[in-house]
């Protein structure tokens, strides 16, 4: 078969289709092909047919040209479809595969599709979906790898950071080629994550990129590259030089890298000691506290002891303030240390809390005491014991730290016995008269409600910036009597947290409490709890709330929140909601329909 001839016909036909059938009639280029087609048709009749179709186009009028051209197209395409080239010559080599590490899973389309959209589009609500998918292990599905790799460039920084920190490391070295292929040392944002990840996954293999970033990279990439430098002599020489840089972020990166290198070289130790004794200490707190070098650990303690001694002697408020700040930095460097020297010093600070509290500068001694209590609460058993033993004399954040320490160290029964009575101090309104009892009660409530042992120390203060989030420490289970104590104290928020199914007093409390809530957002949490604990009236009360909402003139519908509750009800309640929907405004139906369907279709 003369395929080149057919291809020529196709090309001309395509040209005319693009130009418009109006110019097809009499086309001379098409006309030239008729004779060779006729000749070829003598051997293969199909060419004769094509020739006839071409002739029809050439002979057509403006009115008939389009039909003739389409007839020709259908015929030629039909033939060319049978002539498609397959295969490829050459040596078939194996694919270079990369082991993703761990067991790959296969998620369903209903799980995968929204996640792929979250990773590849923009808009609100994506980070929650991505975090949830990570917690469920969904990212082990290899169909997400490409989307995850691209998501480091997400315009929402938190997503790029989360993907780089938590998701991509799941795939191990398998993703190195892809990361390398897209890294741009002159870039920013997502490129920083790529470089960091390359270093994390393959420190040796990424050295060339690190050097390239240092030499030619953007400012941000240079800073990121500095943090990736290691312990070779060249690296250390470079880092030592950069510790003198004028730019603070370059200096900070170099110092952090130097601290993390754990080098015991004399010049490195000398540099770090100089920094620890100076104003740049705040740049390296997070690394200093992880340092296991005895020279560094001992020096920090020396500085802390010296600063502590000076602090108690100072009288000038301004000097006191800066001294307190420096003490806070040094105490932060002792956080998570378990050695006896650090323990002794921190307990000494705690024992002198009264003297420290007398310092009324800005920041004040009370601020330092709070930090010390926070560090003790997560310290050695002795530190925690001493803190707990003093709980009756403590207030504010110090008290909260002590109660957390108590929950972590005492048995559930002892913890209940020691602190349950404090809940009675919680009032509807905090006044000067009841403030102490109220605050104590609220601190106990907060410790009861906590899901982790990590107590955030003053998020708004700069110290927390240095803190990498610790792994959530395990909290002991609570004595079941806490729920009864919370009900007795009428501590509604605590009851919501502790409520469990089948507890009659809880059901009664929730019903009574709901009756007093006037506004939809106030009722929402009560209803959520009722649904969670399978309150017998949950469905009916939810329906009442929806009916009330339907009458509201407010443009903000709470049905979004109610929708989620509907889906959590028992399947047997579905008919009630199906009957309710037609009575509601369209906007509410739009928001609730999916939830009602989910309820109707959920497994038993």
């Amino acid at each position, binding site marked *: 078969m003369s395929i080149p001839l057919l291809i020529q016909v196709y090309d001309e036909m395509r040209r005319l289709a693009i130009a418009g059938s109006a110019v097809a009639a009499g086309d001379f280029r098409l006309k030239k092909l008729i004779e060779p087609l006729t000749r070829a048709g003598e051997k293969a009749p199909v060419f004769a047919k094509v020739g006839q179709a071409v002739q029809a186009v050439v002979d057509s009028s403006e009115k008939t040209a389009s039909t003739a051209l389409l007839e020709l197209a259908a015929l030629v395409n039909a033939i*060319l479809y049978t002539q498609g080239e*397959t295969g490829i*010559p050459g040596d*078939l080599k194996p694919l270079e*595969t990369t082991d993703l590490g761990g067991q790959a899973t296969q998620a369903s389309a209903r799980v995968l599709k929204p996640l792929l959209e979250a990773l590849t589009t923009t808009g609100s609500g994506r980070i929650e979906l991505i975090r949830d998918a990570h917690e469920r292990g969904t990212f082990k599905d290899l169909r997400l790898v490409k989307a995850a790799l691209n998501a480091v460039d997400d315009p929402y920084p938190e997503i790029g950071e989360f993907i780089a920190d938590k998701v991509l490391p799941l795939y191990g070295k398998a993703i190195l080629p892809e990361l390398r292929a897209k890294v741009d040392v002159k870039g920013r944002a997502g490129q920083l994550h790529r470089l960091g990840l390359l270093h994390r996954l393959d420190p040796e293999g990424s050295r060339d990129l690190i050097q390239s970033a240092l030499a030619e990279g953007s400012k941000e990439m240079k800073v990121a590259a500095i943090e990736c430098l290691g312990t070779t002599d060249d690296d250390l020489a470079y880092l030592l030089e950069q510790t003198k840089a004028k730019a603070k972020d370059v200096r900070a990166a170099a110092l952090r890298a130097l601290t993390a290198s754990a080098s015991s070289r004399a010049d490195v130790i000398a540099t770090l000691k100089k920094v620890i004794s100076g104003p740049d200490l705040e740049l390296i707190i997070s690394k200093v506290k992880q340092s296991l070098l005895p020279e560094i650990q001992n020096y920090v303690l020396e500085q802390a002891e010296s600063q502590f001694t000076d602090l108690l002697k100072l009288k000038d408020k301004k000097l006191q303030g800066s001294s307190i700040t420096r003490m806070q930095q040094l105490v932060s460097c002792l956080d998570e240390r378990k050695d006896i020297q650090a323990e002794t010093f921190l307990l000494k600070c705690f024992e002198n809390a009264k003297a420290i509290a007398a310092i009324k500068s800005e920041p004040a001694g009370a601020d330092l005491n709070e930090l010390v209590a926070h560090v003790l609460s997560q310290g050695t058993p002795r530190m925690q014991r001493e803190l707990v033993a003093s709980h009756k004399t403590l207030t504010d954040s110090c008290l909260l730290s002590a109660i957390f320490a108590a929950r972590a160290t005492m048995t559930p029964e002892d913890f209940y016995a020691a602190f349950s009575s404090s809940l009675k101090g919680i009032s509807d309104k905090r006044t000067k008269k009841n403030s102490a009892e109220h605050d104590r009660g609220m601190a106990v409530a907060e410790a009861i409600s906590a899901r982790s042992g990590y107590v955030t120390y003053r998020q708004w203060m700069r110290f927390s910036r240095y803190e990498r989030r610790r792994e959530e420490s395990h909290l002991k289970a609570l004595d079941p009597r806490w729920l009864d104590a919370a009900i007795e104290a009428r501590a509604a928020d605590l009851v919501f947290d502790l409520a469990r199914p089948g507890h009659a007093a809880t059901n009664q409390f929730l019903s009574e409490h709901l009756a007093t809530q006037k506004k939809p957002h106030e009722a929402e949490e009560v209803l959520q709890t009722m649904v969670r604990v399978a309150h017998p009236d949950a469905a009916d009360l939810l329906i009442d709330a929806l009916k009330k909402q339907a009458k509201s003139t407010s443009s903000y519908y709470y049905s979004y929140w109610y929708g989620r509750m509907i889906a959590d009800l028992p399947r047997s309640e579905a008919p009630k909601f199906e009957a309710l929907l037609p009575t509601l405004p369209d906007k509410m139906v739009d928001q609730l329909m999916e939830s009602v369907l989910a309820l109707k279709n959920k497994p038993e």
Partner: protein
Amino acid sequence: MFSEALDQLARLHSIVKQGRAYLQRRLEDPKLKPETDTPIAAWLGHAWQLAELKAAGLVQADVELIQLAFNSHDDVARQEHIDTGVWMNLATGRIQVTQNFRPYKAAKYIKSDDSFFQVAQVKELCVYPGDANPRIRWDGMLPRPAEPGDFQKVRDHARADFAAVIKEVKNNLKGPLADKQPIHALQFRRIGQVDGVLVVEDARGERLTLTDAGMAEEPQSCHLLQLLSPSLHENQTLVVRFRHDLDRRKLQVKPLSIVTGASVVRLTL
């Protein structure tokens, strides 16, 4: 783009031409039932009801189906979401598709389909008129867990002779109203690459090149082959979608899933 557009216009022209003849026949004989040998009735807008399909004898009894691939995409032109399941009939080895159409306006009221990881036991399977991969539908189905024997059946039904499949596909493609992207299960000896081009080869050395080009309704899948264990690159079953590239005049395939002795490794959704 122009080549695709011209192909679509030629198809439309064929639908009009064949459709006129079909409708003329129906006008002349009002008792004439919708044609069941070809999909022309559906092309002309006929929405087959299950009862009609049953009455026309387009029913298979006691069928077991295993899903080999799944996709859900937005068809903007139709203003619909379309959920497509690719199934193999375990008895016959025929690959058939379920399609769930959800118009944008009614999407909230119609439940979407999802991937199905078990075996569907269908008492009465209705099969729409079609060619390579006809559409199927059922009223009720009983799921059961997939067993190694089911995956082995898929592998046994897979086509080991690429040349024969290629011939069949080309023959099918020449029909103006044929499905232009048919799906087949291929028993391959190995998957590899030639100068960076992904290739699947059968036991006789016949090859097909792999691509995602021109099949944008499904997520890209070729890149996933490099993330699989090397054992999946040899002597397995590859479920593929064929596509003829009009501009480059090549017949290529897109991988949808790999079927091993123990599972279906999905590469799309």
